[in-house]
């Protein structure tokens, strides 16, 4: 097993065979397949209607630049989610994207993503108010219905840690959204 870095530097597994043979998927196929989900994840975690697509495109741009390597991973979709999850919660990155968007909006650009309903927007606002890791776990759990093992791989952390973040995040969400204790 070899290691490579992704996002903030944690390892993402890939196969030796894949390395020898090169990417098994074209970037275009990978992009067409994953783009929508990745934009959704960026939207949930950044809350930016105008910037979510750019955050997702940014993650794919990094993948495209290193596709010779990223394409050889067993699950490049895990890698690109880790990148976008980290970009979306990065205050600096979000700030840059927002600043660019403000400039583009001033030039008449209209975001392709529609507004969320007030209820849904409120829910994701509370999610984003959680600690960074808890917010990422909650988003991956509910938005993508990912099992604990997947979330752990995406975030490059132990399954036990993911369970702890999920438990704590749900507790806090239930309290802040004034849902019954049992619900959590």
């Amino acid at each position, binding site marked *: 097993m070899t290691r490579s870095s992704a996002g903030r530097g944690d390892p993402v597994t890939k196969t030796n065979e894949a390395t020898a043979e090169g990417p098994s998927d074209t970037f*275009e196929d990978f*992009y*067409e397949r994953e*783009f*929508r*989900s990745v*934009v*959704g994840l960026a*939207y*949930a975690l950044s809350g930016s209607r105008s910037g979510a*697509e*750019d955050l997702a*495109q940014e993650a*794919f*741009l990094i993948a*495209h630049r290193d596709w010779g390597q990223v394409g050889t991973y067993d699950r490049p979709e895990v890698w690109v989610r880790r990148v976008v999850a980290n970009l979306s919660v990065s205050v600096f990155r979000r700030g840059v994207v927002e600043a660019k968007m403000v400039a583009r909006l001033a030039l008449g650009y209209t975001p*392709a*993503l*529609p*507004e*969320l*309903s007030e*209820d*849904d927007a409120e*829910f*994701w606002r509370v999610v984003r108010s959680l600690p960074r890791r808890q917010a990422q776990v*909650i988003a991956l759990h*509910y*938005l993508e219905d990912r099992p604990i093992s997947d979330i752990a791989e995406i975030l490059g952390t132990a399954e036990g840690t993911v369970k702890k973040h999920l438990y704590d995040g*749900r507790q806090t*969400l*239930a309290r802040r*959204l004034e*849902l*019954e204790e*049992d*619900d*959590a």
Partner: protein
Amino acid sequence: MTLDTRARRAALGIHRAVEVMEMTTSTTEHRTVERFDRFRDRKQRNRRVGALLVAAMVAIVTLVAATIALERRDKLPVTPPAQNGRIVFGEQGRLDSNHLFTINPDGTDVRDLSVESRCPSWAPDGSKILISANGSGATVRPATINRDGTGLTVLDADTSTYLNLGCGAISPDGTRLVLEGSTDRELPDLYHPEVDGIYTVRASDGGDLVRLTHRGGTDPDYSPDGAMVVFAGTQGPHGACPSSFGRRPPGTPPCPSGSISEGDPDGSVFVVNADGTGLHRIAQVPGRVPPLSWSPDGRWILFETGGAAVEVVHPDGTGLRRITLESVPTLRAAAYPSWSPDGTRFVFVGWTGSDRYNLFTARMDGTDVEQITHTRGIYYRVPDWGTNTG
């Protein structure tokens, strides 16, 4: 409603939003990946524009910073770091050779110090005046006197019998003296590479002799921060005109006009670090150069250059600038310039023809020239502007 129900519904809201986005954009693009291509192209274009903007900003900032630095560097100091006190000077003619006096900068209150010395130099705090005196034996040693000429203290703890320690200056912290070192033994050779150089000694007693340079020189002066020393270079034996001390063999042709005798200042100005490292020449001005005067802010060195003008140069040898004194039409020469403690003016000996030598002061740009003594037949020498007003 349970948390799970609420969360699933919110997730569905995100999925629907993405679907709407897809429907909106699919009308203009056949494939989703075309959006990526557009994003990538825009990113590359923005990066190029950004790089150009950054390069332009760096160039502008560098240009502005360099301009400001040059302006500040070339601007003569005007910030007063110390008050202007009395001027000490020597004169020949009224009494005897190199008799010392002090005078107010406006020419009033001349006081006789009843001391002889060819190179008086105020202590930076104005408490003492450094002079050269005869030490024990036949050697020259530094000495200090009070501002009124009393309290002569010869600093002769160094007992080298071959070495004369002559003119110099007191370090800004008052702990060391920097002095010209030479010997007059074994005439007729005036220049002795084994001895001639710049030395420092302890200010309290003249002990702890340290040789800074093996290059002969005169009139050393500390920089205001005490980190460097400036001095005037002297002519070595190579290429020198034989000395004028009556040692030329009979029949030797006279020295050509402008030639320099061995041991005399050769027009070079050197700077060396106070620990003896980093010796380098910063100017070469034919004619008389010493004494040298460091500006109170440490950015300029002032010296005479011949004619009705003086010159300043940065300690690194750059920015050589001539300051002309044209407002006094009769002024033919300005000698022995010395910076005022507040950095705004300098004092010099001006020659206005025949036997008329007097003390003058002027602004550092050469304007506002004031004659502060009005005598004939008295030869003023080596004024040094101190901080002591008492």
